[in-house]
């Protein structure tokens, strides 16, 4: 597992000691937010949760629930959160493409990260299952964007 993936893992598991240690390391190395692994992990988690039904109603409720469970629900904008899930599922809903295109990759990662946390919590993944999800995301990332 790559360092970026381990960093994300620490966040999702709320292992703040490891998270702080990686923060320090990444900052000293001048590395930024690992948007790629966040995006691909979000993609895999969204597929697992919603791909079978692609029910807009369920997605809207999921985002509303995620917002309600975070103290700063307003950091998780509903419209953008829903649009990102629709996009991952290729659901042709009005305005989705424009909303997603208007997000810069950092803000996109912030929203995806919060939703990913919720998806992982809802699924009650064991450590092994979470590792499996993250490794699958890592493999997809490499497959689609091989490092030259």
């Amino acid at each position, binding site marked *: 597992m790559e360092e970026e993936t381990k960093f994300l893992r620490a966040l999702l598991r709320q292992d703040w000691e490891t998270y702080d240690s990686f923060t320090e390391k990444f900052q000293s190395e001048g590395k930024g*937010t690992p*948007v790629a692994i966040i995006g691909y992990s979000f993609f895999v988690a969204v597929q697992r949760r919603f791909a079978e039904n692609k029910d807009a109603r*369920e997605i809207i409720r999921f985002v509303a629930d995620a917002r309600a469970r975070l*103290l700063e629900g307003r950091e998780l904008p509903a419209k953008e959160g829903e649009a990102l899930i629709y996009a991952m599922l*290729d659901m042709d809903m009005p305005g989705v493409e424009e909303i997603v295109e208007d997000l810069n990759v950092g803000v996109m990662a912030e929203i995806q990260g919060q939703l990913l946390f919720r998806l992982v919590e*809802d699924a009650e993944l064991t450590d092994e299952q979470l590792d499996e999800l993250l490794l699958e995301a890592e493999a997809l990332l490499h497959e689609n964007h091989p490092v030259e």
Partner: protein
Amino acid sequence: MSSGSVGDVIAVLRQILDDLDGAAVAATTAQKSAAAGTRHYQTATEGADSSHATAARTQASEAAAKSGKIARLIAEAAAEISHYANHIAPGSVPTRTSATGGMLSGEALAKPSHKKGSLAAKALGRVGQVRSSDDGLQHFGKLGGILQDAAKGSGGTAVSKTPDFSFQPTHQPSASVGDALLAALAVAIVGAKGVELMSRMRRRTRNDDTKEKG
């Protein structure tokens, strides 16, 4: 005028959500039936140069589109009500996805992939190309802060598995439902502001601590 508590208001909102659920299911079923009907009409009337056949195809297609739109609008209405209920009393509207909340097992799921040119491919293409954003870890730090704050707010875990349905009424017992709604909305707004202010203060404290350490 009838009197009632905020709890009564939430109960009414939940009932409305249940009703909307039923309506959305009906609209979705209608959309699927109409879409299937369109395909059957197309198969049955393929090559037919008849105004009746054309009208049947057009109308079935229109019915599918409109019932799909109705389903979407109902879902949006339900989401707004859900947001409102949770704004008045956070966590008061439970997730309706508990039955399907778990992720599918690996066996039940084909390996996820995205088609070239699809919405998913475009979004993933952008992040895949840059790998990491050039932000000095700002966004990831913010993400960590959000989850840490949520953990502190709920006593150690970022979110509770079971939504907490209890909340303090924010009105006098004799207040009407309308009064309760207004009072709850006012508190919700002030509360949201308060949360934002607290969050800013926490972030500032954290930053100050970091600076001192550095």
